[in-house]
């Protein structure tokens, strides 16, 4: 069991200390003093929610020097989930950023035991509820409370399970997708021989319960298989009053407890506490700035781990507000990973019923949620589904994983959970083979697509500043480029087509829809007449991969498609079948030969049918994203969101020549990159080929496996796949170089990479791996020219 549990902290103790700390001006310190101190007319920051999240944010803001902070709580301080929660701090977490937060919280709480009486200057007002957030010109200007208005620059929504409702009570609604479920835990009278307070906390994942000592007795709760979502229609007095003990609902958990500890049978019940917890659609918490309202920050949706995350999450959010960005990559938790599409109450209600039980389930790789599906689909969905497509969902969009051939059965959902070789192995293998030898078609409609245009030359001017690669290319050319932040890190990785002198077509990863839009809006000059349009829904994208894609397309268009007539990384509007105005691009996101077709949706079915019928004689078949993934990883293509993030620069992943450093044009992140060019990099994107790994019998690498160089851990893998061509597993990851004595990061040179002996640790077993900084050139077909090979090695989606 990889789960380690650290000691639990008495939140109540910590909380009272915090309260003292926030001290003299706080009206919450003494209950004997019922008078309310009047609210200030203005403040820099207003935090709503006096639970662990709100207090943690306020504490960290104060530590970073922002003293003008007002914290509002509708009831009493630490009265919501924080008060009633079981108070367990566990650092065993699934997502590494969450693990870091929990680890920090754990240390912080221990420090807080000593650190008392520090004046933070934060004003705390309880029994004050926020009714409305005032917004002007897309920026927070103040909050309306039941005790008057406060003007402010920043607002932080830490309203826990009420965060969704509060998000909607703003002049510009902010969608915060979370939903509450009832959560029960049991308190008992002390045992005959009272339990020591330092008795370890026990989590029985099979029984779905946790048990800890509580005042000589026990406190035990759990995460049942049939959660009870609550407050779907918002705050409902009837439901609040009905938050009673529900013993019938608790029965499976009580059975599990008595099965694990039969000796507790004679223990006397004190109370069954019902304390709703909030859950998010992907079981990860929500933090960050609203994409629609500047200065509106959110920290909520803790999936019942609020106490564990409290310290760390508050710290990152405070940094974000003060510095403009947090000190770690928090993209997996960023509010902008969601769109408006996840804000439906029905969706949330259904999804959290699936999420909550997952807390106790084994998290297997490539798990797809089963609820809230088929929301966004391509027009070809039914057609592909009928041909055996199995689907995964990204940002609400259904994408084919692979196609199950007729007559072949896969394992049932429950049996298919594995860390070993999965049941789709051979199916994906044959799709990959078809991509290599004939031609495959993959529906890739989910990609985010923007059009940026202007009446004059402004579009180019602005984009040159926003993107790192040179976009001043001849019309019809495709440029792979990053959208970097000040520190040179990738905020987005995209392909941009110059449609004409004044307009550009931009293709980004699916989950960039909100983030990329916000970034562009934020950095575009507000007075420009630039037109930015999200055209994602207007186009269906088909990827024709394989050596025979050329033949299929030329037969359908009566236009020669050979590299002489249609060079790679080139885009032309042409007709395919009867349909006109199809954007055909000579790239496949895999390094294989072929074309992407961007088809206006009304032509999608026609073009697909034509491609399939003409392609028949070339051996065409459907393929899915798993094949695509295998193809791109064996060619060392990095993928934003998995391999690349806001803390990775082009220098660190071998994409220096995708940056216009020499051109003399300024762009965001240029200074950081120049500096890095001078000083060298501290991590380097590397490809590993597993040497002695048995695909059939050994556990597979998925991602997150430690990388060892000469016996020292130098990093973790970020993605991996089986290469059907190499017949080996390929892992991608970053290698760092730590000083043996100080642990400080040192420069990583190609030489450093090449001179090491590498091992990848999969669940405790180390496998020898060969490190490479460049892909195997033998993997690229002879027909592609040299420039294509060069470019394809950095390309990735």
């Amino acid at each position, binding site marked *: 069991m990889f789960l380690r549990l650290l000691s639990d902290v008495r939140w109540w103790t910590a909380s009272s200390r915090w309260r003292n700390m926030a001290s003299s001006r706080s009206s919450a310190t003494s209950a004997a003093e019922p008078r309310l101190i009047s609210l200030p007319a203005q403040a820099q920051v207003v935090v709503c929610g006096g639970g662990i999240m709100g207090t943690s944010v306020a504490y960290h803001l104060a530590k970073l020097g922002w003293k003008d902070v007002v914290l509002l709580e509708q009831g009493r301080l630490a009265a919501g989930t924080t008060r009633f929660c079981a108070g367990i701090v566990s650092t065993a977490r699934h997502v590494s950023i969450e693990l870091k937060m929990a680890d920090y919280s754990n240390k912080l709480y221990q420090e807080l035991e000593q650190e008392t009486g520090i004046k933070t200057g934060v004003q705390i007002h309880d029994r004050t509820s926020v009714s409305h957030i005032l917004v002007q010109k897309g920026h927070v200007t103040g909050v309306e409370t039941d005790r008057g208005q406060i003007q402010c620059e920043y607002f932080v929504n830490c309203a826990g399970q009420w965060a969704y409702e509060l998000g909607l009570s703003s002049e510009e609604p902010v969608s915060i997708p979370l939903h509450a479920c009832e959560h029960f835990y*049991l308190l*008992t009278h002390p045992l005959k021989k009272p339990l020591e307070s330092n008795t370890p906390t026990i989590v029985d994942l099979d029984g779905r319960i946790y048990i800890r000592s509580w005042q000589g007795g026990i406190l035990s709760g759990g995460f049942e298989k049939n959660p009870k979502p609550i407050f779907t229609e918002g705050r409902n007095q009837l439901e609040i009053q009905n938050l*009673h*003990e*529900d*013993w*019938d609902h*608790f*029965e499976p958990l*009580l*059975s599990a*407890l*008595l099965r694990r500890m039969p000796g*507790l*049978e*004679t*223990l*006397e*019940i004190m*109370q*069954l506490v019902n304390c709703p917890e909030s859950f998010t659609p992907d079981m990860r918490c929500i933090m960050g700035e609203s994409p629609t309202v500047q200065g509106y920050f959110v920290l909520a949706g803790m999936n019942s781990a609020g106490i564990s995350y409290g310290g760390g999450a508050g710290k990152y959010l405070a940094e974000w507000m003060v510095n403009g960005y947090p000190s770690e990559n928090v993209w997996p938790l960023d509010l902008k990973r969601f769109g408006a599409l996840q804000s439906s109450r029905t969706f949330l209600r259904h999804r959290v019923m699936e999420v909550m039980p997952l807390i106790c389930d084994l998290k297997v790789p490539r798990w797809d949620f089963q609820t809230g599906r088929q929301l966004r689909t391509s027009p070809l969905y039914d057609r592909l589904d009928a041909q055996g497509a199995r689907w995964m969902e990204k940002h609400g969009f259904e994408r084919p994983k692979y196609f199950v051939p007729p007559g072949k059965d896969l394992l049932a959902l429950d049996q298919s959970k594995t860390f070993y070789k999965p049941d789709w192995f051979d199916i994906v293998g044959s799709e990959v083979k078809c991509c290599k030898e004939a031609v495959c078609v993959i529906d890739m409609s989910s990609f985010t697509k923007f059009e940026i245009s202007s009446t004059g030359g402004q579009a180019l001017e602005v984009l040159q500043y926003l993107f790192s690669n040179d976009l001043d290319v001849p019309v019809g050319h495709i440029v792979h480029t990053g959208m970097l932040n000040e520190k040179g890190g990738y905020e987005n990785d995209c392909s941009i087509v110059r449609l004409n002198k004044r307009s550009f077509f931009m293709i980004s990863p699916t989950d960039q829809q909100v983030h990329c839009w916000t970034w562009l809006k934020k950095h575009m000059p507000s007075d420009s007449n630039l037109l930015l349009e999200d055209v994602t829904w207007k186009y269906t994208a088909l990827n024709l991969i394989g050596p025979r894609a050329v033949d299929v397309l030329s037969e359908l268009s009566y236009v020669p498609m050979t590299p002489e007539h249609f060079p790679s990384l080139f885009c032309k509007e042409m007709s395919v079948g009867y349909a006109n105005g199809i954007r055909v691009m000579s790239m496949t996101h895999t390094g294989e030969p072929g074309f992407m077709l961007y088809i206006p949706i009304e032509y999608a079915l026609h073009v697909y049918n034509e491609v399939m019928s003409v392609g028949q004689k070339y051996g065409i078949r459907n393929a899915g994203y798993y094949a695509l993934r295998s193809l791109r990883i064996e060619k060392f293509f990095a993928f934003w969101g998995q391999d690349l993030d806001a803390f990775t620069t082009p220098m660190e992943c071998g994409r220096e020549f995708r940056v216009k450093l020499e051109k003399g044009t300024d762009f965001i992140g240029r200074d950081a990159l120049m500096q890095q060019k001078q000083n060298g990099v501290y991590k380097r994107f590397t490809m590993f080929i597993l040497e002695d790994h048995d695909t059939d019998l050994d556990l597979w690498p998925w991602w997150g496996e430690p990388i060892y160089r000469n016996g020292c851990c130098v990093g973790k893998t970020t993605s991996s796949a089986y290469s059907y061509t190499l017949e080996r597993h390929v892992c991608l990851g970053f290698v760092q170089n730590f000083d043996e004595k100080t642990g400080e990061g040192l420069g990583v040179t190609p030489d450093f990479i090449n001179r090491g002996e590498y091992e990848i640790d999969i669940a405790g077993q180390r496998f020898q791996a060969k490190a490479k900084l460049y892909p195997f050139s033998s993997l690229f077909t002879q027909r592609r020219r040299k420039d294509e090979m060069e470019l394809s090695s950095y390309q990735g989606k």
Partner: protein
Amino acid sequence: MPAPTHLFPLIRNCEIGRLCNAVCYCHHKHLCCLSPPHFAHNHLRYAPQKKFATLHRPKENFNQFIHARSYVSTPQRFYLTPPQVNSILKANEYSFKVPEFDGKNVSSILGFDSNQLPANAPIEDRRSAATCLQTRGMLLGVFDGHAGCACAQAVSERLFYYIAVSLLPHETLLEIENAVESGRALLPILQWHKHPNDYFSKEASKLYFNSLRTYWQELIDLNTGETTDVKEALINAFKRLDNDISLEAQVGDPNSFLNYLVLRVAFSGATACVAHVDGVDLHIANTGDSRAMLGVQEEDGSWSAVNLSYDHNAQNEREIERVKSDHPKTEEKSLVKQDRLLGLLMPFRAFGDVKFKWSIDLQKRVIESGPDQLNDNEYTKFIPPNYHTPPYLTAEPEVIHHKLRPQDKFLVLATDGLWETMHRQDVVRIVGEYLTGVHHQQPIAVGGYKVTLGQMHGLLTERRARISSVFEDQNAATHLIRHAVGNNEFGTVDHERLSKMLSLPEELARMYRDDITIIVVQFNSYVVGACQNEEL
């Protein structure tokens, strides 16, 4: 009761099944001394033991049965699996949901569930449900036949037409009569809601129609010009139908099949319990010992049962008084014996049963001129003892009117097969909990009591077992039957017991239970509440 316990464990094959019949019969001899031997001979075919002689208490006997069994090793005993049990229980279930208009159900009835479980072969109970098309309202009824199913069948087909016709305004009656006269299409009067097993006898339809037409012609002639009172209409319809049954048997029919049919209808009997629901007006017309029970949900969520009918049997003092007042004082002692009318009949009111209505002369004349089958039948020939001043029996119903309130959630109509196995309070609680779902099961609160985890666990497991039996049924009537047949001493369904009860051989089943027929009508509290407000 001196039940021959030691014999029961032996009941494992047909042979002994027959032996048991004999045992059973002996029983009756003890209790019902006046049964003549020939009577006993027909015991099982006509199943007279129910109405014509007391039956030993089924529950007691069954417990002895089980008790004895546990000491005897019976390895070959065959048990029904849960799916088999379900297929037996669900064979006759029927559900009707009142259709919605514009997404709204404007009727005070949401719908009804009904079901029957036979004990007799063939079953002698009948049920009917229909919507009145020319007037407002819905009719629902259960009919418990005795001495055969002929009378119950006829009443289940015909009674609602008589009621509907009684309720029709003068103009509509004229319209219908004119249509029949000129051979035009008839206005539909009733829309039936029938299970496929609920049949109508095609052969008699013409005969029945003619009798019905005569009735409405008389109503047209009688035209009082007054608006029809539901209570009066119900009483008239009951009495008129019973009268027609009697007349048809006296007149006979040239068709020999029909002739025999009308005689069988008249010589067998049936009780009837009928509900007429129109908005908040609920009328119950009852003849005999079936029962209508209203399920009322109190403010605290608990359930209470309100009787909407009185049993017409010896347990009802008022009935005994009524019978006595109808006959000379000299007969006082012989009128009710062993809790039976003339020592023979359990219900004190019923359709058919001309043996308790006709004069001895009439009975003899009809039988003599009747078909041979009738003459060969010892039962029909048998004249009740102390038979001096007929009629002793009437089909006139007792009608109770109830104004529905929002807390009146449902109505249970059921034959005595249900009521003799379950207390009315339990019936209402089980249906109430079923209809409102598990969530409304009275929640457990620890309060200030000292409860250990182990005790709580035991309690919860037991409650869950109860809930899981709810989920098996989609029909409230089925759910009630499951409890009536399968309940153990803790009030929860015991599968083993259920399995045993349902696998009893035909001829034995009747000793442990009676035919059970149930209709559960669910009311629409919103509409009821709205109607109530309008009236205020």
